[in-house]
């Protein structure tokens, strides 16, 4: 079946509409194709960076708690 082609001019307002749609699509599109994103690497990298820092903080907290205990014990002994 032949379909009659309807000639039409691309007016300024239509151009603006197309531009608006293109802008909306480019903003809405995710940065990577959702089905092919790597879900694990970032989590592994973060652990590599954060775990050591948390371990150091935990150690400092334990030392600090021990130091406080020692000082308290010393004052308790020194008190008459």
């Amino acid at each position: 079946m032949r379909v009659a082609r309807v000639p039409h001019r691309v007016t300024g307002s239509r151009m603006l509409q197309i531009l608006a749609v293109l802008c909306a699509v480019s903003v809405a599109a995710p940065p990577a194709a959702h089905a092919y994103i790597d879900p694990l690497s970032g989590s592994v990298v973060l652990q590599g960076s954060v775990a050591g820092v948390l371990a150091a903080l935990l150690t400092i907290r334990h030392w600090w708690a021990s130091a406080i205990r020692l000082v308290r014990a010393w004052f308790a002994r020194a008190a008459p």
Partner: protein
Amino acid sequence: MSLTRLPSSFRDPSGFLFRHHDTLYRYVASSYAAHYDAVMRSGLYDELTAADLLIPHDETALTEAGILDAHRILRPQPVSFVSYPYEWCFGQLKAAALCTLEIQRRALARGLTLKDASACNIQFHRGRPILIDTLSFEVYQEGAPWIAYRQFCEHFLAPLLLMSRVHADAGRWLREYLDGVPLEVAARVLGARAALSPAALIHVRLHARTIRRFSDSAKPPPRARPVSKTGLAALIEHLAASIRRFDWRPSGTEWTEYGNTRGYARETLDAKRALVREGILSAGAVTVWDVGANTGEFSRLAAQAGASVVALDADPAAVELNYRGVVAGGERSILPLVIDIANPSPALGWDLRERMSLAGRGPADVVLALALVHHLAISQNLPFDLMAEGFARLGRTLIIEYVPKDDAQARRLLRSRPDIFTSYDRATFEGAFRRFFDVTRCEALPSSGRVLYTMVKPGG
């Protein structure tokens, strides 16, 4: 042989659950042999089962199930009711999160690690969270990260932050996000609130950003620093310490100030208690679903009558208070859940068979629907015939309280809406329910216009 693999059990190549002659078994694949044997030989299995952190199992003879290529066939102790994370209140999700971290802490100490931290691997068994997936462990390799870290954050940490800092209803998001709330979404919703919590900053916002940065699978994978065992233990400890500090006070919501007993004279309440108790005992109920349970007064009555009770309520605050009561009292037979009976949990996941609907987990021996009819009929515009049909799907025996339209509580519901409920009367109620049930008892509650019915499904 006739074995039925559970449709929810397909993700883990280490094994799967199946039913054989109505008994639940877990198949352990030969490929998982080294890890399973390490769990058993290291003493971890004994330690976790003794601490009620892991479901105990028996190793069965392979011939019993007739499977020859399995490393082992286990017969785990069954849990009385399978619930899902989107049905848990804040306190339940928090307890399940801490249970998971405690298991991971103990596993690391014995040279193993959790390869899976799905909230669905935790069930509430005798009032406490417990790991039901014995195949969640693998042998720990020095320097390896926690492979389930992201899953833990999405299944537990992010929803808990959202529930405690945004709204308790955020737990329901887990019904949409079966694989956990994406960290990107949680970070956006938490917004500036994330800055107030180191856990939210590190494990949600920074975590989401790092995942996004390395998400392009077309690029070569990044070289990550090895994670020492001390670092891993510190990560687990930081997560646990942060979650222990999360809090949510169930106040100011619809039901918390209400109580089950408001609007009742003493004699009305006494008669109602006696009738409900007699109904449960005469049905010989093993399982009771208390629909619209509020903080669980009648659930406790059912539990005292010897039943295993699931206490459903739409209000997370009421369920939270009920759960705190369960914990405080060491109650083993009551499972409070956030379920709105007007929109109960549907079947979900692949082929709609991964997660069971509420009705799919029934029928209960007895369903209690106390002081509920007027809410469904007036607030939900639910006609009595549809109400009866719905309850007939849930249980064999129904103990239901008819609340007349001129009751003080029903009038409250009508205060700001036109009374379009011309069919709301006792004759219509009875007629609708008699289509699905045989009424075995019908008692007017003294000093009120309310009536307590006990109904049994024909052949039930």
